[in-house]
């Protein structure tokens, strides 16, 4: 039997055991949506890291570095620095003033129904887009990692069913522990891989960086070339490359603090001070991981080589192939199992944030005016919507198929989070004049600007060669109107302008009167939600 498959099954068995354990502790809304707010600071920090570092980080960035060297490492930086926005601006006010979702903070002084409806729409957009990108990647990846023993469709269905089971039965508590275990496995695997890379170079940085300065491979024309992989500019080329990079940076710096699946994590701890400490824990793990992409990515470039990776599954297989080259098939299986755990932990986090928003924001507060018609309705609706969201994600991933061009969905999720969610959260906490009209405008403009710009970007508009077929083809066969793949540089200012103009067009005295209450609550923690007993 395939060793990778055995390791996958061990991970599945452990996580299902945790789900069973958590299911007995998930009665009631606070327990189900926020793990009774009893998660410890370090645990939440590790879980944030597990929620955040997707297969795109683990396999994707290693792959980009393996093919483009330094420019790939540039990606790594933004993913950590973004947490400073979370730490300095968002985490504590959110924990102090909210209950289960980001919309709770907005609803404090604005009219709850329109604001929650828009916030819920934006949350569902971010979460489902991100989830579809993960699912399509997961299907293709699991198939490769298991050496073709399962088909793409089987892999998508398997991942989908597992994430539904974690969320429906184990709620936030099971999701949290799946994320914690994944983060620990990911860190262990990355440290091991880094040590093995350095052992390969006899623990000499001189030898390692010397090898990096002369990576030899065949370029697109089939010509043998030798490049210094530490040199910038192999991927981001003028005229638009640097601008695209800045635009991506903006989406990361402002978007991470607006990602619903990250924000909900801060409701799982007892208070704002613990939320703060959990961000610091997360930053230690996330930063260490991204620094180590140096070893993963450049290790794959120098030890395995871009040519070999291209011939054996491509970009995403760089880290597993590196493991195989350094320590054989058992280590390959271990790294593969980590990739699998990574996918599951992220999609489970996305599912619970989507269902929390649908049930708490939309069902209870928009449709039923903030009243649960019978006890337990909110949790029941969340469980049902987890089936629906999960089922939809499985179906869409299968329709799109393994070759679908979905990388843009991740850029889109961050762009929406940065252009729609973040402006309204920040303005509602810091601007007295802000009102409902501003929030609705800000969310709508941020959402539409992000989607609109992506549709006219090279992600959708490009003239493909005749050999590209099916869903891998770009939808619009024409030259892109907007030259950047990341819309942030334009959509974030548009989101802010939308929110400001919307505010100025309307006057809402009650929102200004209640500003003091939100200001005091978010800055002191007066009346913040407390932890509950199981």
């Amino acid at each position, binding site marked *: 039997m395939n060793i990778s498959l055995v390791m996958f099954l061990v991970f599945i068995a452990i996580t299902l055991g945790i789900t069973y354990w958590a299911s007995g502790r998930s009665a009631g809304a606070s327990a189900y949506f926020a793990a009774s707010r009893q998660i410890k600071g370090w645990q939440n920090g590790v879980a944030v890291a597990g929620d955040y570092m997707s297969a795109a980080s683990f396999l994707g960035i290693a792959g980009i570095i393996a093919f483009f060297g330094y420019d790939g490492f540039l990606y790594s930086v933004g993913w950590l620095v973004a947490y400073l926005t979370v730490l300095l601006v968002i985490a504590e006010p959110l924990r102090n003033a909210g209950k289960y979702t980001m919309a709770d903070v907005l609803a404090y002084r604005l009219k709850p129904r329109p604001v929650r409806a828009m916030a819920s729409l934006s949350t569902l957009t971010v979460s489902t887009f991100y989830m579809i990108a993960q699912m399509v990647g997961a299907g293709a990846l699991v198939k490769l990692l298991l050496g073709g023993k399962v088909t793409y469709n089987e892999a998508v269905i398997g991942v989908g069913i597992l994430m539904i089971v974690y969320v429906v039965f184990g709620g936030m508590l099971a999701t949290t522990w799946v994320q914690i275990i994944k983060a620990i496995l990911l860190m262990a695997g990355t440290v091991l891989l880094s040590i093995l890379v350095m052992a390969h170079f006899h623990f000499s940085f001189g030898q*390692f960086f010397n090898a990096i300065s002369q990576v030899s491979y065949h370029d697109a024309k089939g010509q043998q070339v030798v490049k210094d992989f530490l040199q910038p500019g192999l991927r981001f080329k003028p005229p638009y490359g*640097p601008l695209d990079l800045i635009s991506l940076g903006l989406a990361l710096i402002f978007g991470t603090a607006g990602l619903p699946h990250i924000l909900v994590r801060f409701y799982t701890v007892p208070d704002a001070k613990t939320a*703060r400490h959990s961000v610091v824990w997360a930053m230690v793990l996330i930063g260490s991981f991204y620094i180590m992409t140096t070893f993963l990515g450049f290790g794959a470039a120098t030890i395995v080589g871009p040519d070999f990776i291209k011939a054996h599954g491509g970009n995403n297989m760089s880290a597993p192939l590196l493991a195989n080259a350094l320590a054989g098939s058992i280590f390959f299986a271990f790294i593969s199992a980590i990739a699998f755990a990574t996918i599951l932990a992220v999609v489970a986090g996305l599912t619970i944030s989507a269902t929390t928003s649908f049930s708490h924001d939309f069902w209870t507060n928009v449709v039923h005016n903030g009243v649960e018609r019978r006890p337990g309705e909110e949790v029941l609706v969340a469980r049902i919507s987890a089936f629906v969201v999960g089922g939809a994600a499985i179906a869409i991933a299968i329709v799109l198929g393994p070759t679908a061009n979905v990388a843009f969905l991740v850029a889109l999720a961050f762009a929406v989070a940065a252009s729609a969610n973040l402006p309204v959260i920040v303005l509602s906490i810091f601007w007295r004049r802000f009102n409902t009209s501003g929030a609705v405008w800000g969310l709508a403009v941020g959402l539409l600007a992000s989607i609109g710009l992506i549709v006219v970007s090279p992600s959708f508009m490009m003239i493909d060669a005749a050999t590209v077929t099916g869903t891998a083809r770009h939808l619009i066969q024409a030259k892109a109107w907007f030259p950047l793949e990341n819309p942030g540089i334009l959509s974030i200012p548009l989101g802010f302008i939308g929110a400001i103009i919307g505010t100025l067009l309307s006057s809402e005295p009650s929102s200004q009167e209640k500003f003091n209450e939100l200001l005091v609550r978010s*800055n002191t923690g007066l*009346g913040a939600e407390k932890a509950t007993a199981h």
Partner: protein
Amino acid sequence: MASTLKELAVVPSKQYQAPQAIWDKIADSKEFKDLMATKRMFIVPAFIFFVVYYFALPVLVGYAPQFMSTKVGFVNLAYLFALSQFFVAWIIAGLFVKAANNFDRLAKDILEKAENGKGGK
């Protein structure tokens, strides 16, 4: 079970409630203004610094790649600057946690006064 049932209520009935005048009074108090000023004094410069420091990376690497390729020891300026971002982020986070102990102390005074002053629960 009692606590579970209570949790099921969605309306924020068990939250700390106070009339508008109390919130205004706290917001206007010297203690609260001190807290906000202390927070602002750290957060605003820290935020501006890290944003400028971070975006200097893509700007320099994107528009001055030759200069950034300058060799420094085994590596180059571009790699060192990227690596420094991680340590700068960690240092700012550490300084924030230290400064935040001060915010907590100021907030605690306000909390105690508010909760003793008006029966909230």
